[in-house]
């Protein structure tokens, strides 16, 4: 332990230690950040004439959308059920693929080359926004719910496999060693030592992903991948703003409802 400092040498006012000690560097950094923000905003191509017209246009959109039009509720319900089916199938398929992918991407049980392969799979699945993936699938397999299901399977792998791999890396390894000590084969170790430890997380993640797929299925429909988003994009394209508002209200309501339900289920698990 060092000797207490001479009280006379301590400053009268205490100030919090700074994260960047060198004041020159600190100020230079702040200056650089300020310059970036100002520079970017100053060069924004804002066409004010266009904006002032735009408000008129926005007023027309809003005016045209009120009151929301629920007359074609049959179309709305069909689109919504399709979104639900897309979300269910994509969650199921996504979780099915995520389990082996997560085992591949867990450092503590996968050999190094397999680990890198698993991680690369997850990184690629996570990096692309679902809308981009949806465009590619629509081009490959055509318009409709199939492209949506495939897109959301990729989306689900990116999230479920990542979280599950992290959970596998945190398991209690004692049980694995105990089973290995009895001479259990690899599959038995997986089923009796690892699986029970990750099952609760897997169920929680699946329910969360179902919720999140339902949300995403509304958005990927805009590029032609089926579901309520396709209905919304059509309504918007045909200037049916009152129907579009009705669809938006239903989407928001359904998302709030499914968030509440999945929250309740996850709380009980």
């Amino acid at each position, binding site marked *: 332990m060092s000797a207490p400092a001479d009280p006379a040498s301590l400053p009268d006012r205490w100030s919090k230690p700074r*994260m960047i000690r060198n004041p020159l560097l600190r100020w230079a950094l702040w200056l650089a950040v300020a310059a*970036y*923000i100002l520079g*970017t*905003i100053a060069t*924004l*191509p*804002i*066409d004010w004439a*266009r*904006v002032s017209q*735009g*408000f008129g*246009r*926005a007023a027309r*959109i809003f005016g045209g959308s009120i009151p929301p039009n629920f007359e074609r509720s049959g179309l709305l319900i069909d689109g919504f059920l*399709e979104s*639900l*089916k*897309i979300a*269910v*199938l994509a969650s*199921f398929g996504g979780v099915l693929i995520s389990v082996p992918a997560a085992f591949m991407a867990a450092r503590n049980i996968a050999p190094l080359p397999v680990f890198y392969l698993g991680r690369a799979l997850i*990184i*690629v699945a*996570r*990096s*692309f*926004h679902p*809308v*981009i993936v949806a*465009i*590619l699938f629509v*081009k*490959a*397999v*055509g318009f*409709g*719910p*199939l492209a949506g*299901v*495939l897109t959301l399977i990729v989306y689900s792998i990116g999230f479920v496999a990542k979280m599950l791999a992290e959970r596998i890396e945190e398991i209690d390894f004692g049980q694995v060693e105990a089973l290995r000590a009895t001479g259990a084969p690899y599959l038995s170790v997986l089923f009796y030592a690892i699986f029970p430890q990750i099952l609760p997380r897997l169920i929680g993640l699946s329910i969360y992903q179902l919720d999140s797929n339902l*949300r995403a299925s*509304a*958005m990927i429909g*805009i*590029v032609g991948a*089926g579901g309520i988003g396709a209905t*919304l994009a059509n309504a*918007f394209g045909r200037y049916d703003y009152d129907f579009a508002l009705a669809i*938006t209200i239903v*989407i*928001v309501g359904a*998302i*709030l409802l499914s968030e509440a339900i999945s929250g309740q289920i996850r709380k009980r698990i």
Partner: protein
Amino acid sequence: MTDQDMTRPAPLREAFPEDWHRYTPRQQIARYLGLLFAALVIGWSITSIDVIWEWVWDAPVQMADLFGRMVPPDATNLGTILLVLWETVNIATIATIFAVLISLPVAWLAAQNTTPNRATLWLGRIILVSSRSINTIIWALLFVAIFGPGIVAGIVAIMLRSVGFVGKLLGEAIEEIDPRPVEALEATGASRAKVILYAIVPQVMPTFWAVAILRWDINLRESTVLGLVGAGGIGLILQSAIDTFKWQEAATVLLCILGLVLLGEIVSAWLRRRIL
């Protein structure tokens, strides 16, 4: 049953039965019912979804064909692509900065322990929920109508979407603070502004930075698709490459997006380590 079992005291037998079950029979039934329900829902989805099954079996061939067309990536337009990629970064960064600034007062309204009264609490919550439940793409569609196609519509769309996310997490952080510094400052007769500045702000600072960095990372991904509805960024080039069947250029754009997202993840991980 063996003799030995009979001699074991009843409570011990109850606590350590001969054959051990992880779940009680009631839990067991509940789990099977849950499983059955899930199977029924999946079965209903598969049988009633409007899919042409020939296309499903054909999908791997089609995918392979598509990826085949992308090789090798064509880098002749790399200069333009990188420039637009930089624009994408700017959209994400500027939108995150504004969103964070706007979400501060909203979080203050939406946290139970700082909001002035019940009406303001609900006002805050309504702002948060409406911002979060409408997707960025839908916001972008609307703002393209207002501002015209371009980067400004993208910035405003991402900003409005982010306020809900940042404000919600920040509001939760404010609700979870240690109330004692607040009480201590109030006891000294400090003004409301001083209490916020010296008792609340320092406690939520780490969450604030963590949430801001996380959202920046998310926004980087979101801003890659804004161009698809005309709101600026790399999506515009991707869309036009796909529409004109320039698959090799599309491959370059996709690789650039992959690089951008990875770089964003590395930068945000580094920032998190430095700041938190």
